[in-house]
């Protein structure tokens, strides 16, 4: 607890730099990641992360210095080249995009490793620390690093805000963007550059392999909560920032623990929570909804069967045995009993000595379902001109989802019919 308070007070200047740096990195890559995610190029971030290594090494070999701005420029150039290479390979050969990504990623990285080890073996003392681009050194960020990250982060946010509308359009509907005369090629170049920059700074915190998570995970998690791009970007930025804080807290309280991997663990937890519990698109919500739909269809089908038996016997009050209902309509094993118990709980049927019987409430409800079924059959015959023997299946599916408004419209359009295409009465 004490360490948490000490951490949160940000009294230690080192902690301040690390937290600030991690938050800035988390946020800027999350924002950029939203666009790559929506353009279904999530793994581009992974490719760029691997591909900036040769650029960094060459920049160092040429300049002989580790000035962060020079290295960043080298990183940007080779990252950008990798995006172009993937694009060219995909367009000019029969190789699939994922093959192109894997190919460019491993070749650029292999060349980078070759150059890096070459530099290391030269015995040049000033090269120490270049390998932070491989594994990230979030826990040892300095004020200068934070300045660079902060500067690049602000620049990225400004570009995204300034070109928000354009980026949105090329993410959702690039053809339309082209038609209305937007400079799509330039915008794609700009977006690629922004992504490369986000990766080039982010990689210094979490390293080559984990960088992909900083780009992909916040966007993927945010997507479960909203349909609006602006909201998605804000949520993703919050997830990214919180994960940054969490990761730096872990390595603050347990110094042997690396920051980057814990940031990724936090991000994955956000993804898991989102995909399980998000209100509309989460797994649990969808599962409950599917269950409800399934239950509605099952019980309505039982009511319908009971009504049809009653109709034939000219007696809606009699009780029916399970076998009798099964004869009318097939149900999965155990389904019929389950459905009847649900109906009994809702007081639509009661269990009698020799079977199950509709209550008056149940009779009204069963009439409603049968009416919808037969009205729809009528509609298919009269308005769509289907043959009588082709209308049943369509009605089976739609009867469960017709609302009272549609029901009224159907009746009006059909002139309040009394009989369905099979000459059965449409109950009122």
């Amino acid at each position, binding site marked *: 607890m004490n360490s948490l308070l000490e951490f949160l007070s940000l009294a230690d200047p080192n902690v301040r730099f690390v937290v600030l740096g991690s938050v800035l990195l988390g946020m800027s890559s999350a924002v950029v990641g939203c666009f790559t*995610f929506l353009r*279904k*190029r*999530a*793994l581009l*971030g*992974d490719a760029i992360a691997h591909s900036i290594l040769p650029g960094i090494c060459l920049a160092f070999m040429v300049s002989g210095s580790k000035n962060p701005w020079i290295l960043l420029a080298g990183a940007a150039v080779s990252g950008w080249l990798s995006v172009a290479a993937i694009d060219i*390979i995909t367009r*000019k*050969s*029969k*190789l*699939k995009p*994922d*093959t192109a*990504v*894997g*190919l460019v*990623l*491993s*070749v*650029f*990285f*292999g*060349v*980078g*490793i*070759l*150059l*890096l*080890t*070459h530099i290391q*073996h*030269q015995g040049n003392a000033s090269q120490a620390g270049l*390998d932070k681009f*491989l*594994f990230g050194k979030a826990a040892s960020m300095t004020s200068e690093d934070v300045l660079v990250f902060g500067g690049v982060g602000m620049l990225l946010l400004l570009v995204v805000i300034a070109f928000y509308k354009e980026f949105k359009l090329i993410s959702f509907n690039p053809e339309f963007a082209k038609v209305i005369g937007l400079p799509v090629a330039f915008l794609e170049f700009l977006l690629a550059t922004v992504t490369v920059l986000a990766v080039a700074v982010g990689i210094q915190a979490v390293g*080559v*392999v*984990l960088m*992909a*998570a900083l*780009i*992909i*995970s916040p*966007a*993927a998690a945010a997507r479960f909560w909203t349909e609006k791009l602006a909201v998605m970007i804000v949520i993703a930025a919050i997830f990214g920032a919180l994960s940054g804080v969490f990761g730096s807290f872990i390595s603050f309280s347990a110094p*042997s*623990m*690396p920051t*980057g*991997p*814990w940031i*990724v*663990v936090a991000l*994955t937890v956000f*993804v898991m929570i989102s*995909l399980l519990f998000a209100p509309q*698109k989460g*797994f649990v919500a969808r599962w409950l909804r599917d269950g409800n739909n399934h239950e509605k269809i099952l019980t309505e089908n039982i009511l319908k069967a009971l009504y049809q038996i009653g109709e034939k016997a000219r007696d809606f009050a009699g009780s029916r045995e399970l076998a009798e209902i099964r004869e009318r309509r097939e149900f999965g094993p155990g389904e019929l009993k389950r459905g009847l118990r649900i109906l009994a709980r809702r007081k639509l049927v009661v269990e009698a000595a020799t079977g199950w019987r509709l209550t008056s409430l149940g009779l009204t409800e069963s009439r409603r379902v049968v009416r919808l079924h037969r009205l729809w059959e009528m509609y298919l015959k009269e308005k769509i001109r289907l043959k009588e023997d082709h209308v049943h299946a369509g009605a089976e599916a739609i009867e469960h989802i017709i609302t009272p408004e549609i029901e009224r419209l159907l009746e009006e359009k059909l002139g309040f019919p009394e009989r369905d295409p099979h000459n059965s009465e449409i109950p009122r």
Partner: protein
Amino acid sequence: MNEFYTILTGSLVAISCSLLGSFLILRKMAMVGDAISHAVLPGIVIAYLLGETREMIPMLIGAAAFGVLTTVLIELFHKKARLQTDASIGITFTFLFALGIILISAFAGQVDLDQDCVLYGDIAMVPLDLWITDAGLNLGPRQVWILGVNLLVVLAFILIGYKGLFITTFHEEYAATVGIAAGFWHYSLMSTVSLTTVVSFESVGAILVVAFLVVPPATAYLLTEKLPVMLGLSALFGVISAILGNMLATWLDGSIAGAMTAVAGGLFLLTFLFSPKQGILMRLKFR
């Protein structure tokens, strides 16, 4: 002699990976191979933790199980949570890799693995770890034997399963209608890829595995439409990369794994430009 063993190690990895990789890229699963090669890390760390006390074979299989777990998780994210495939891949492998790094940090004293080795291995160490029997007989580097056995497993898998792999790769729907279990071939292939990744990891690292899984098959695919030719060519390109890569590494005094990857990339570039049918320069000429 050491040089010979280095090239032999590289070639053994190259052939195993290129053969499996050919099926991966034809099945549009190149990035799944990439994901597996990173995601087996926690399995490897756990295997190291258990150390010499256990049998090697179950340990390898345990580590390889993480590779299969990766494909299961990717599918779960994709099917159950309706996340797009590439995002599922990215989330799964970064999480498992992060877990691996955390394990390495947590048990730093007990695990003889460092992060450099994880990424690009140390093929130069292979000739030094010799397998000497109790009778004192020197059988050569241990790693070469392990990789050799793995290559035999891969060859046996492809020869025995060729028909099933072929049909599920090119005619997925037809395979389903004649009752060939696509799932069985999918998971068998993934298991073999995982096993290969695990045994290659120590000597060549994650990067060379990915490179050999993707680059030689992609190069071969630009030269032929026939699967047997593609398999042969990609194995050949793999071996050439291993030989020339070793020379390049000596010349530049750099990582051997990195150099082999660079050569494989160079071969791809040449093919991409000059391939008789697919090369972009050739197509310009005949336009």
